[in-house]
């Protein structure tokens, strides 16, 4: 079952991004989406992890269906966030899309070594950017088969 078919609620996005400009652009891109969605934004790696683990003050956070992660973040950078997510049994099945402005080969290699689900470079052109965000959304939400969150994963929800 694709994600859209699984959930009867708005799709939960977690965007970890410190640049308000990019946050706004992502919001603009998702606004036109056919899929009902809920965009949660966190500006640094530490709060992103706290959100995912429902540490204070995020006790009531919803488990995201997809994570959009920037690499260069204050406090804890995206690579470390990624490695922590992928090392956490409760979180590692959530698809993580790294979306960054870096085209550096060492970033791409390292990120895949940390088991990212996919790596996307932010296009400069606005139309392209919107198209990329919408492609991510449609690919991960309507095309890809994802596992149902299992007991152990959902148990951490309460």
């Amino acid at each position, binding site marked *: 079952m694709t994600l859209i078919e699984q959930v009867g609620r708005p799709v939960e996005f977690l965007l970890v991004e410190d640049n308000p400009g990019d946050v706004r652009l992502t919001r*603009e891109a998702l606004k036109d989406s056919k899929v009902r969605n809920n965009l949660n934004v966190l500006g640094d790696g530490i709060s992103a992890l706290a959100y995912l683990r429902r540490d204070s003050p995020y006790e009531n956070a919803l488990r995201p269906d997809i994570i959009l992660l920037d690499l260069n973040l204050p406090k804890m950078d995206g690579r470390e966030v990624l490695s922590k997510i992928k090392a956490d049994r409760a979180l590692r099945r959530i698809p993580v899309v790294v979306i960054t402005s870096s085209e550096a080969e060492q970033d791409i290699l390292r990120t895949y070594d940390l088991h990212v689900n996919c790596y996307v470079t932010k296009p400069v*052109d606005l139309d392209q950017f919107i198209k990329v965000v919408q492609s991510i959304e449609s690919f991960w939400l309507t095309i890809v088969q994802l596992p149902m969150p299992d007991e152990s994963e959902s148990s951490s929800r309460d």
Partner: protein
Amino acid sequence: MAERLNLSGDEIRKRKSFLGLSGEEEISINLLRPQFQKTVPAFVTLLHQRIRSFPETARILEKAHSQSWLHSRQAEYFIELVSGPYDMSYVHNRLAVGISHQEIGLGPEWVQASFGLFLEWACRILREEPDSPLSANPRLADSLAKITLFDSGLVMDSYFMAENERNEVLSRIFETNAEVVWIFDGKWTLRHANKTSEKIIGWTPSELVGKSFEDFLVKSPALSDHGKGRLAEIAACEGHWEGELLLTHRNGSELAVWATLHLLDETPESGMILEFRDRTAEKQMERELLQKTNDLLRSNRDLEQFAYVASHDLQEPLRMVTSYTQLLARRYEGRLSDEADEFIRFAVDGAIRMQALINALLTYSRVDTRGRPLIETETGVALDHALENLSFAIRESGAEIDRGPLPRVVGDPVQIMQLFQNVVGNALKFRSPDRPPRITIRAEKEGQFCLFSVSDNGIGIAPQYFERIFTIFQRLHTREEYPGTGIGLALCQRIVERHGGSISVRSSPGEGATFLFTLKPFEEGGATNASLSQNVSFQKGSKP
């Protein structure tokens, strides 16, 4: 010859007076001549018999071209002995005889003995002969002895001349050798030092002789504290020792030298020869080279760092400018004034161009840092890919591409493709408005290189711009005429240079242009090949 031996007229006079040979005697000795003419041939026969009785001299005599000629020549020689005057021309003549004896290999000891035999024989004959001039003039025997000694002295001189000359050459080589040469006895005491010593270590040869090696040796970096004994041991074992030494200069400073130690004979006890040259200048150069290499590495790292900064930190704010001016245009175009629309268009255009420039700079800086190893590359295949990428422009312009056979080169296939794509792309872009582009691509062997040429029938380039076109971001046309960042040919130059070749252009305005570049051919089993496979395996090994 006499000059080389320092045999001046004075010297000859001195020798004669030393022997007590007077001018009268020189004349009276001629009285013996008639007698000698009769009897000397018999003496020569006697002499040859004596010579033949010793195997080593017998061999020399047998080797002579003509026995009878030798016989008569030697008889003449002894007769001439009593045919004064004994002037310079006589001296020259006698020296020549000495040299010819030396040349046939008869040693001086044998010649000396022959003179002895001659004197003994001559005295006996002169005493025994009834009509001997000796009976009238008994002093002739003394005179003959003096003349014979004078003559043998000359012959000996000629013998030692060659030896002296050889020694002189050797000593000149020793003194003027660019390296310091020190000869030690078995206890490491200096016995000989050449003049170069003063130039290099500050001490004159005479000051050095008698000193111990200990007085100069600071240490031998290669041997740590094993000391000089170890050097001699190694020299004895391996025939010689070679390495770096630290010595003390006369002015107290330390002197790094490159030295070689040989033994004079089988064991160190018989003495040693140490040769060395100053390495201070060399070391200075090594340090400078290392410094430059480090600078270069650092500057390469800086460039790479810059590339990263450009790719990330610089793009980030630029992306904001681009995206939001675009968003502005999308939301408000047509809703504000015409002027506002124009402003927005300029802003969007500027941001997009800046992005293109940053990307171009990145591509340029990555030619070296992102280059793949140089391997066997089919340039024909690289051109296929380039033409495929340009297929739209080729179709659109109706271009005709004429390509000859293309060789295999040593290269980075991706960069060779980029090279063709840029050069052919330029030919399409700068086409003449009057005619469809016709592009000719050829390659030929030129010396150690393959020379590639890409010719077009386009608008051409004036000669004063030939250099400028290869400079990054230099453009000859406005953006309205021909769009572009001005990176293409700078990139081509950087790629060709990374491959060890060069690129140039021939053209005149309106006549089209020919771009020429060289690449190294790939040779099966060649030296390049071996270094290539090393390169490739190194790359493989270093991959994560």
